[in-house]
């Protein structure tokens, strides 16, 4: 009891001095390189905040930690964030990193995913597939979704006809299995009117309102981390591998190098050609309307609900 009280006081005290526990939504990988860089290069410390990066575990997802107050910031895809807000949990985007959608559908060699009506298609059991679900309804593809936990063995073994994949992660994992990939058997959502931004850093609105200064510092230092990563990809890869090895992630340097390059590419806005680090209102509106139409959201989630302009 005394120990619990002591820990609580320490935590509160630490929070008071600008301590943020950050939990990315997935295990350690180059998808979160900018945050690792900001931590390792001391950008957070220089910004006057203490940041602890804690990855989710099999027993505890990132949002579980947010709900419990164990973590203060996490990364979410835009569609995920909308679903969470629609479910009544108010989240604020404090930094948007992705400017493009990375999701793809991969089917067997020579087969166009759009021709596979009623096919069994793999989807992450942890979410992330909102756009694919929209497309499935909109285009009347009648896909039978088969949730998978974390790997692509179902598709490789031929148990499913196609699978969802991220262009920076599962896409390369599939290539690593020797799977032939070309324009025909890979459907890229971003090229078909579904270019909705993905990763951004979110905080619960209550926490954010109470710690605006820390949130701003965290966002700025994280952005600095990403910019440094873009300028120093090989050194960034070393930092990523340090986190990967520390967390015993089943991956390799090659995959992480490819992932880093792709994640950095996705951060460049197609129209401006720059890393803008901002949510695009048009993309928010587009995604929200689409998800409402497909009855994936009860109400539209607006740009204002997602952001607090004052921190930008």
């Amino acid at each position: 009891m005394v120990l619990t009280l002591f820990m609580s006081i320490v935590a509160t005290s630490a929070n008071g001095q600008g301590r943020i526990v950050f939990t990315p939504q997935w295990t350690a990988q180059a998808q979160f390189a900018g945050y690792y860089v900001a931590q390792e290069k001391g950008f957070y410390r220089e910004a006057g905040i203490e940041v602890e990066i804690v990855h989710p575990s099999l027993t505890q997802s990132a949002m579980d930690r947010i709900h419990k107050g164990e973590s203060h910031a996490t990364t979410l895809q835009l569609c995920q964030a909308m679903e969470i807000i629609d479910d009544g949990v108010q989240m604020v985007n404090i930094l948007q990193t992705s400017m493009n959608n990375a999701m793809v559908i991969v089917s067997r060699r020579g087969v166009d995913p759009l021709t596979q009506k009623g096919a069994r298609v793999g989807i992450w059991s942890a979410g992330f597939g909102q756009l694919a679900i929209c497309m499935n309804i909109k285009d009347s593809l009648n896909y039978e979704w088969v949730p998978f936990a974390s790997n692509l063995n179902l598709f490789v073994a031929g148990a499913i006809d196609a699978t969802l994949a991220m262009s920076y992660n599962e896409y390369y994992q599939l290539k690593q299995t020797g799977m032939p990939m070309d324009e025909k058997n890979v459907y890229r959502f971003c090229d078909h009117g579904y270019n909705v931004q993905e990763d951004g850093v979110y905080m619960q609105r209550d926490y954010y309102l109470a710690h605006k200064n820390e949130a701003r510092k965290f966002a700025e230092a994280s952005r600095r981390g990403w910019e440094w990563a873009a300028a120093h990809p090989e050194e960034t890869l070393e930092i990523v591998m340090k986190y990967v090895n520390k967390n015993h992630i089943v991956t390799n340097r090659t995959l992480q190098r490819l992932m880093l390059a792709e994640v950095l590419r996705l951060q460049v806005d197609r129209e401006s050609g720059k890393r803008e680090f901002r949510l695009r209102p048009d993309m928010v509106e587009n995604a929200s309307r689409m998800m409402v139409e497909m009855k994936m959201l009860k109400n539209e989630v607006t740009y204002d609900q997602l952001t607090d302009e004052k921190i930008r």
Partner: protein
Amino acid sequence: MKRLDKKLSLWVVSFATIILVTSLGFMFGVSRKAIRQEAINRATDILENTTLRVNGILDKVVVAANNTDWLVVRHLDKPDSMFVYSRKILENNPNLNGCSIAFEPNYFKDKGRYFSAYSYNDNGTILTTQEGNDHYQYFYLDWYQLCKLLDRPVWTEPFMDNNPDDICSPDMIVSYCKPLKDRDSNYVGTISVDLSLSWLSQMISAVKPYPNSYSMMIGQGGTFFVHPDSTKLLYQSIFTESLEHEDSAMVELGHAMQRGDEGMRQMTIDGKACYVFFKPLGETGWSAAIVCLESDIFGAFYRMRRTVVFTVLAALLLMMMVCSRIIRRELKPLTQLSKQAETIASGNFGVVLPDDGRRDEIGQLTQSFTNMQHSLVSYIDELKQTTAQKASIESELKVARDIQMSMLPRVFPAFPNRRDIDLFAMMTPAKEVGGDLYDYFVQDERLYLCVGDVSGKGIPASLFMAVTRNLFRIVAQQGHTAAEIATQLNNILSHDNDQNMFVTMFIGCADLRTGHFDYCNCGHNIPLLDGKFMDVRNTNFPLGVMEGVTFIGESIDDIRDHQLLIYTDGLNEAENQQHELFGDDRLLDFISDKQDVAAEKLIPMLHEVIERHRNGAIPNDDLTMLCLKVIKL
């Protein structure tokens, strides 16, 4: 000069080298092929045995699952019995790591959403638990879903076991999963039996047909789960490196292994030439491969080849030296022979050639040289005699020439006391003695002259010429006309002319007082009068051809102050080295402006022109020229 022994040795060694290189190349080729085949057989056998052993162990897992699943489906109404069955499998099969009997969400109404009876071997102690919960949604995992979706038993890809309760095996494990179906054949869940792969790694890694060979195994997705580089296990696939660096050979190997092909590939791995033998592992979808370095397989062969090559090189060098010595020794008599031949060539024919009693080619050559020496000696003797005889003949010929020349008037001016006669003549025989002749004399104020050419050359012609000249003197002195002289000469020469010799002749007789010129041309060249051919209408036969013929003469009223050039065909038919004749044209051209030149000058000038035309060519015929001008005082 390149020595013959060196040259021959080089030829012999070169030929031997060609034969040896061809033979050794063929032998090395055959040996390499045999070694390669032996390596293929060896690796294939080892791979076969290994896969049999692995399949044997995997079959036990299959049997364990098969022995239990019928009990499970028979007691679907008793969920708690599943714990007993999963435990029982491990008790009966101590090598197994774990067993899950998992069911579809909410399958048992009173057990909630999750029900997976899981037993695991914790260092010899078998523990049993229900492993499904919100954080461990087993029905999304491969081991559960694969057999459900494929509707058949499957082996999962090897993985590191992790579950929410930190029930974690330090080993890589693999699961054999089988769909469970109720009496209506509806899928209800999955039975999964886990097996540690540490034994597999040990077994496969122990397979080393060659010192540096190693084994590897990949799963259906190409992931390594046996590899000497432990950092690659589960973390990398056979395709990983080719994602960044094109390696088509490795990609092809990966695809072949994924397809379940069996075979061998020759390729380069990490910069080393390798042979990769691969074979699928039963129905697992996995494939095992043995990588053998080419340097291992052919190491002994390469060493042997190096040794043989060096030995052969040394042997060829030795052969060259020995050959050279032997040939030099064998050719030694030839060297002596050569020196003695040079002595003979210098004129010392008395040298005694060596006779070492050899009966081979060199012996024969020595004998031939001896014979040649004897022949040379006798030939030289004969030559000496012939030369002496020739010298004698030449001497006689010289005398004959002198005699012949002395028969012709050679003192010029021919008539020093007479200013009215300008006459000069020259006879140049082609050989020692010639068949041309000329003569002239004055008798009773009449100048008789003749120029003749006997058929043929040499001694016969010279004798005939001598006879003809003497006959001319005798007949002409009788005061006849030119035609009469010719007729008489012809009759005398034709009589008993068994040799059928004849002579062409121009005979002339000038009256020095009146200038009347009487002449008869007997088949002779037409003379030139004042640089033009004379008007000769009757050519007549040459003298000596036919007896009894009357020769017809002609005359010129006054020849005084006219230049008359009489010559033999040695003048106009003089040939140069290109066999071009001097010809009438050149002759006429030469003489055209020389009517006033004195005979004594004209004839030598003309002789010089002819010599120039010959330009060193040997005279082809006797040359005689006579020039006369009777001067009117």
